[in-house]
């Protein structure tokens, strides 16, 4: 039994946000106070009340044409879930992995104390879980475990009108992903599947990973790559202490850093 998986075809997403709304409705989560931060993306980030968020990022393709990259961000339900291992060090029953579906589910009754300063990025390579700062409870998508029990698909998948969101047995989803990848690669050779071996939410992207926010793939250098494009890199403490001083362009320094 290999459990369940999602296949998310980003080439079909129109950012209607049906999935985002369906998630809120099924989970009965309240609306958030938001503000315009210069994007149609709303709200600005995931939170303990927004478990699913369609991210909007603008970028240019190779010809310089402006493109919009839509990225419905959610928990990937990792095969080896680091958040489970990390959070269970503090409370042994904080996170469980459902043996039938493979869903990684947080125990709603577990609350970590105020002194516990774990950040989302410390427990998740995709920066997804969020902590309710008032209660100390960590939350994220649970693959609609209650709906699966009733034989339904997750709310986001049911709501998707474009065929972006697919859900089913892992083998079937991997097969579908490979098939669709081959199809897309005919016209867009850069297309790739994001970490298909590691996660149960397999994204098909047709542009570089850093075009889709910071964590489409689990890559520690992803954020740095995006920041390096935006502004010159500062001297890091580690480089300073080890006597590696950066005088060159950010691109050169990035290469030097990789050689370590």
């Amino acid at each position, binding site marked *: 039994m290999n459990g369940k998986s999602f296949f998310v075809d980003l080439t079909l997403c129109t950012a209607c946000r049906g999935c985002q709304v369906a998630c809120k409705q099924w989970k009965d989560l309240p609306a958030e106070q938001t503000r315009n931060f210069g994007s149609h993306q709303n709200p600005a980030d995931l939170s303990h009340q927004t478990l699913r968020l369609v991210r909007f990022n603008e970028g240019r393709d190779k010809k310089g044409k402006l493109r919009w990259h839509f990225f419905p961000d959610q928990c990937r339900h990792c*095969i080896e879930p*680091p958040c489970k291992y990390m959070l269970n*060090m503090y409370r042994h029953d904080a996170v469980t992995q459902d043996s039938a579906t493979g869903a990684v589910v947080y125990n709603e009754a577990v609350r970590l104390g105020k002194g516990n300063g774990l950040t989302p990025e410390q427990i998740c390579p995709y920066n997804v879980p969020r902590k309710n700062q008032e209660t100390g409870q960590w939350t994220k998508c649970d693959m609609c475990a209650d709906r699966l029990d009733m034989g339904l698909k997750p709310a986001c998948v049911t709501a998707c009108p474009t065929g972006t969101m697919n859900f089913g047995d892992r083998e079937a989803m991997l097969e579908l992903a490979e098939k669709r990848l081959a199809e897309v690669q005919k016209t867009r050779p850069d297309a790739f599947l994001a970490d298909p071996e590691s996660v149960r939410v397999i994204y098909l992207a047709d542009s570089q990973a850093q075009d889709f926010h910071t964590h489409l793939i689990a890559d520690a250098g992803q954020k740095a790559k995006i920041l390096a494009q935006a502004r010159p890199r500062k001297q890091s*403490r*580690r480089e300073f202490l080890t006597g590696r001083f950066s005088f060159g362009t950010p691109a050169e320094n990035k290469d030097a850093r990789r050689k370590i």
Partner: protein
Amino acid sequence: MTHRLFILLAAAMLALGLSMSVQASDPEPMEFYAPEDELWINFIQGHSDKDLDVAFNHYSHEGYDCIECHHRMGELKGQASPRSCSECHDNYSPDDLAGYTSYFKAMHKIRFAPNASRPSCLGCHTTEFGAEDKTMTGCANSACHPGGIR
């Protein structure tokens, strides 16, 4: 003249005596030879059939005292060389993390004040490099797990 010579001699004797007493109170520092490079640590048994191994170099940690990681060395009173982490932390399951025997916990637990003593690998990296440096404190595709966690 002889008076001055006597004072000089006394001073010299005193200096010699002091230096000898310092030498006497300072025991020979213990020398240990650590296995140096590319120590592949592969104890944690995950759910996939892939390895979750980490390459550890004593060489890149030579700025630290042995006892900072081999924290039970003090009890040995210098009688034996440092032992492998796995001799005490011998529970290699990432699912059962109770008690000190958990190997995963020994490597990953970030302790927060006021109980911030005895850092793990990840705890020390977080203090040294800051949580923002995902190459050194990150999870999948960091310097520790460059091949991802799968």
